[in-house]
């Protein structure tokens, strides 16, 4: 579904990703771990189509098509979803309005009939219950005044409603207490499906106790330095990231295909 080959990305001339390769198939869950500043969030944003990054080389193919030439909204409609590390506030725009506009933009693209207000409300209310959000959040401005946990739940809600094919979760666990973490993980797990791939970016192993990945990759200095199964996450938790800096280059070659 997603093939990243030798991706090189810089910001203001400063290289962030240095030849990153990653291959993700439908139905798989990949975790990307790594220390701060390793390029995790950059990868997420480049996949979603943020244009403040300079792609210097490499290719990204999604569903057989070149992803990098497509604008963000086209990627989104084609099923690429990014759960933001820092969800953005939009004052004066109600969550309900925003969600409905997004859902219908995606539905139009997929040739489905747009949801009317009644159908949409029915759907969104049941999904909100599942992620433990009160109905009042529908009528509040998008993310405005939400706590960290509420923002993250709102991201999971959007993800559920938009039914992406490829969902990238950028540190969705950061700043969450254990209850919120469970709710978020639960929401993500319900999304696991044979035709859907998930990339879970996290700094801590904690989240992976609840979302068990098929593969774990370690990102350092803009490239994947090590790949393995879920046991790698536990190893990282124990030993930290420092030992990886010295790890031999070969370790990176176990990239899953």
């Amino acid at each position, binding site marked *: 579904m997603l093939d990243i080959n030798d991706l090189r990305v810089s910001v203001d001339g400063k290289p962030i990703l240095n030849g990153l390769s990653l291959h993700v198939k439908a139905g798989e869950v990949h975790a990307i771990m790594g220390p701060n500043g390793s390029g995790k969030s950059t990868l997420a944003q480049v996949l979603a189509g943020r244009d403040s990054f300079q792609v210097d080389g490499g290719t990204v193919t999604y569903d057989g098509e070149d992803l990098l030439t497509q604008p963000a909204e086209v990627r989104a409609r084609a099923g690429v979803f990014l759960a933001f590390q820092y969800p953005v506030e939009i004052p004066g725009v109600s969550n309900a309005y925003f969600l409905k506009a997004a859902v219908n933009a995606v539905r139009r693209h997929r040739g489905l009939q747009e949801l009317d207000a009644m159908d949409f409300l029915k759907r969104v209310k049941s999904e909100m219950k599942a992620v433990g959000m009160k109905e009042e959040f*529908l009528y509040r*401005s998008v993310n405005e005044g939400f706590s960290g946990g509420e923002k993250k739940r709102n991201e999971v809600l959007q993800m559920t409603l938009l039914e992406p094919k490829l969902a990238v979760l950028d540190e969705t666990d950061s700043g969450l207490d254990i209850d919120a973490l469970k709710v978020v993980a639960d929401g993500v797990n319900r999304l696991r499906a044979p035709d859907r791939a998930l990339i879970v970016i996290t700094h801590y192993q904690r989240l992976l106790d609840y979302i068990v990945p098929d593969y774990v990759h370690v990102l350092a200095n803009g490239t994947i330095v090590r790949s393995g199964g879920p046991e790698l996450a536990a190893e990282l938790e124990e030993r930290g990231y420092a030992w990886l800096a010295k790890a031999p280059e070969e370790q990176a070659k176990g990239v899953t295909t």
Partner: protein
Amino acid sequence: MNAATKNIDSFLDREYSAGFVTDLESDSLPKGLSEATVRAISAKKHEPAFMLEWRLEAYRHWLTMTPPHWAQVGFPAIDFQDIVYYAAPKQKKDGPRSLDEVDPELLRTYEKLGVPLHERARLAGVVAVDAVFDSVSVGTTFQKQLAEKGIIFCSFSEAVREHPDLVRQYLGSVVPPGDNFYAALNSAVFSDGSFVYIPKGVRCPMELSTYFRINAQDTGQFERTLIIADEGAHVSYLEGCTAPMRDENQLHAAVVELVALKDARIKYSTVQNWYPGDKDGKGGIYNFVTKRGDCRGDRSHISWTQVETGSAITWKYPSVVLRGDDSVGEFYSVALTNNRQQADTGSKMTHMGRNTRSTIISKGISAGHGSNTFRGLVKVTPKAENARNYTQCDSLLIGEQCAAHTFPTIEAGNPSARVEHEATTSRIGEDQLFYAMQRGLSAEDAVSMIVSGFCKEVFKELPMEFAVEAQNLLGVSLEGSIG
């Protein structure tokens, strides 16, 4: 230029759809201003002597005044001798007695602007319209139905002839002829406008509105609006404005006076869409307007709502004098400046009565090379016990070349006054755009949504019909169909 910016630019780069010219023979005075001009205008309108005297006094006073320069706007000096002060579509008689006599070409013009004047063409009883074309009113709808309730809604010229006592009593009582340079000019040469009187205890059963249209070349429009709500009366009034696209700047210097007596309520809404000039700032209307309401009686209430998207330069400060005890003044404003447009706008709230309250909510949006200034004055006089004011002014910047300024002034002359001021400036963030686009929205829809969200507090004050027009004007789709 990145994709998001490009998208914002194309969104802002929309056509001015009201820019057409109606080909009509017009009856105009030659360019220039003198005592003879003032006399000629008065004579054309068959005014009583008191009116001419009033005008001449204003004119003589104006001669002693100089244009104000304190506003945060820049433009070459106006040559007041190079303006036509009176232009009217030519008519066979003194003026049409009924809508059936109005030149069909004029009716078509208003239809094209979305303001059909035929009463049967409008939803029954929704809005009564006075249509002002250049210097004259060409027709007023629903007069008969309103008259049954004792409501007077007519052109200013008609009011001067038919209701001289009311005009004499109230004209200039809120904005005196010598108030400021442009108000003095208007007082001397004003040609038409709307007049409203709502009798004691009457709630006006429909929205009243005036649609101002400048058509003729080199013409200034100097209209005068006077609204009086007698004790316990309620009225909601709307005005809309457009003009053709021309390379020369045209002057629009209006005066609006509102009088609210005891327990009366006036809601005045404006959607101002005068021609803003082209991309490089060529042409456009100079919109120099004095608007003031007088809460003369206890518990009276005056509310101004404006959406200002047009004009090359806007200079106006709809204000309320809170004279009566427990009276309330409100000002809600959205001002958008794009390309080379400049706006210096805001409000003055003068608290004189006890327990008076005022609210100022101002939303300035600057795009392109636009410059947007909020200027506010909250004045609490020594006798105004327990005055309250809340002011919030927010600026939204779109792009890198625009500017926003805020000049709030507070004069609290009574220690019991409580005055709050909040101000924010934000840029339509790449973050917000990216977030919305990552959810599948187009850049255009994303900008619309963000701007609309920014203006929400003001839009919700507009009457429904106008809210739709205002949102369309800002190029935004209607929010709030759910939630």
